[in-house]
């Protein structure tokens, strides 16, 4: 039997449950991880000979707990814990309560007393089961920095007394928001990376979708959990058409036939039962409006503007206002869109996508010099090689158009 890939798959899926269940007992993160590693090594030795156990998860958990007992018996401090563990080894229900422990672990990783960058690294490590090297590649942060963040976060959890339990009922909503924010940050970092040369890192986006699906399994009735999962699935459903090789393809030019219709239908279905409109629900409905439109020109821009209005009431950020302005430009006209952009000039002065959107609207309004200035500013601010190439192409096209306009002033609209 070729056990290695099987084990790898099982281990990835079970690592978080195992770690969570051990951490809850031994209260030492590093020790818990070590025990999980040990159990995997034992499995790697045993399974190819003896065959895959009926319940690999329970087998790993039992092995890890036995190792924990051995380890704790060796030092006097651990005697009481060892006795507690010994009782638990005989009493294993691998699914029900372990599931809760995984959720608990996610809340610990996203505890507000940890720095946001540590929350992300710890979630990827402890819940998604990525190694420090994989996190380093995914986040484009040196491995030593990731390792340091993980060490500091675990030290803070241990020494500051961050508890391994679900937040109290009155704290749950706020803490869940934080967990969802971390998952969505991971997703966005993968969906359109903010640094480096690779235009997107789909692995990170699918990690986030996996984390979201796990949350959905654990909290199936939370509207914002459903909505965030739907939002991520709607984005992923059209991920393959967003790039042509290394080049960004804008929504308008994407091949809608390549979109995953089943995934879109599933996500829309997930949204239909949500009645309370939170920020993720509104964003998911906007994504659904795009994903279900038969063509770019048939996009229900009026609905999208209304959704952005509602979203802006809940989270009045300049970025939401920017997206609203773009929708207005399509729903009404370019001038209205530009007018809606004006008040954002200060707040988004150093935000590349603002200048990119403004450049595009100015170009469509025929204000060529201003369009080139805005796109050039966007190019200066772009942090991703694919975005830079897109902007360079656009500036080049605008210049060509300008030359064309010089010869034929009668033509202002572009054939597309």
């Amino acid at each position, binding site marked *: 039997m070729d056990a290695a890939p099987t084990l790898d798959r099982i281990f990835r899926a079970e690592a978080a449950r195992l770690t969570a269940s051990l951490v809850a007992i031994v209260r030492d993160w590093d020790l818990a991880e070590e025990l999980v590693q040990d159990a995997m090594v034992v499995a790697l030795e045993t399974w190819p000979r003896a065959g895959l156990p009926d319940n690999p998860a329970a087998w790993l958990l039992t092995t890890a707990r036995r190792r924990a007992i051995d380890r704790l018996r060796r030092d006097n401090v651990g005697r009481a814990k060892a006795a507690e563990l010994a009782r638990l080894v005989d009493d294993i229900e691998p699914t029900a309560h372990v599931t809760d422990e995984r959720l608990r672990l996610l809340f610990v990783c996203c505890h507000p007393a940890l720095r946001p960058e540590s929350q992300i690294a710890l979630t990827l490590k402890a819940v998604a089961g990525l190694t420090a090297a994989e996190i380093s590649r995914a986040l484009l942060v040196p491995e030593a920095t990731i390792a340091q963040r993980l060490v500091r976060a675990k030290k803070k959890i241990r020494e*500051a*007394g*961050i508890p391994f339990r679900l937040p109290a009922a009155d704290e749950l909503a706020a803490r869940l928001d934080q967990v969802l924010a971390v998952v969505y940050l991971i997703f966005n970092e993968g969906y359109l990376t903010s640094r480096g040369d690779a235009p997107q890192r789909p692995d990170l986006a699918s990690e986030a979708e996996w984390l979201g699906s796990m949350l959905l399994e654990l909290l199936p009735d939370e509207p914002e959990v459903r909505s965030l999962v739907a939002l991520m699935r709607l984005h992923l459903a059209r991920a393959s058409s967003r790039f042509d090789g290394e080049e960004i393809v804008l929504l308008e030019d994407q091949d809608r036939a390549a979109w995953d219709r089943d995934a879109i239908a599933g996500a829309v279905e997930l949204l239909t039962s949500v009645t309370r409109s939170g920020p993720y629900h509104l964003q998911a409905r906007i994504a659904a409006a795009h994903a279900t439109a038969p063509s770019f020109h048939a996009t229900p821009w009026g609905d999208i503007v209304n959704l952005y209005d509602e979203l802006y009431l809940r989270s009045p950020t300049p970025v939401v206002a920017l997206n609203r302005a773009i929708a207005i430009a399509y729903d009404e006209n370019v001038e209205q869109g530009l007018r809606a952009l004006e008040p954002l000039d200060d707040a988004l002065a150093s935000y590349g996508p603002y200048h990119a959107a403004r450049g595009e609207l100015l170009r469509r309004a025929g204000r060529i010099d201003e369009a080139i200035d805005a796109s050039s500013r966007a190019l200066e601010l772009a942090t991703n090689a694919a975005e830079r190439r897109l902007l360079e192409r656009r500036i080049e096209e605008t210049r060509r158009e300008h030359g064309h306009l010089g010869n034929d002033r009668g033509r202002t609209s572009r054939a597309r």
Partner: protein
Amino acid sequence: MRYMFSFARDDAAWESLSDEEKDSRRAKVGAWIMEQAAQGRVHGGGELTGAATATTVRFERTKPIVMDGPFIESREILAGFALIDADDLDAAIALAKSFPLDDHAVEIRPMLQM
């Protein structure tokens, strides 16, 4: 676990208050502390006088140098502290959130467990 709660405030803003206002705020904090003490959680603490009264001793090449002022000069100064037992950080955070003066920041630090 035992935590030190440090209460920081804007020194100038505090000094601009009338004596009556200061006393009414002190009374609120006193009631809050008594609530915790009633549950046997408090192990010392108190309000400090202004940063202008602080003296710092630093050692330069093992020679002690005595200077006027606190460790760090800033607008926000340490106004007081309390040693309080709480089950874990979440319990300590919940306590800190119930501190009655919203113009004070509360820093929660666990005491080193020996």
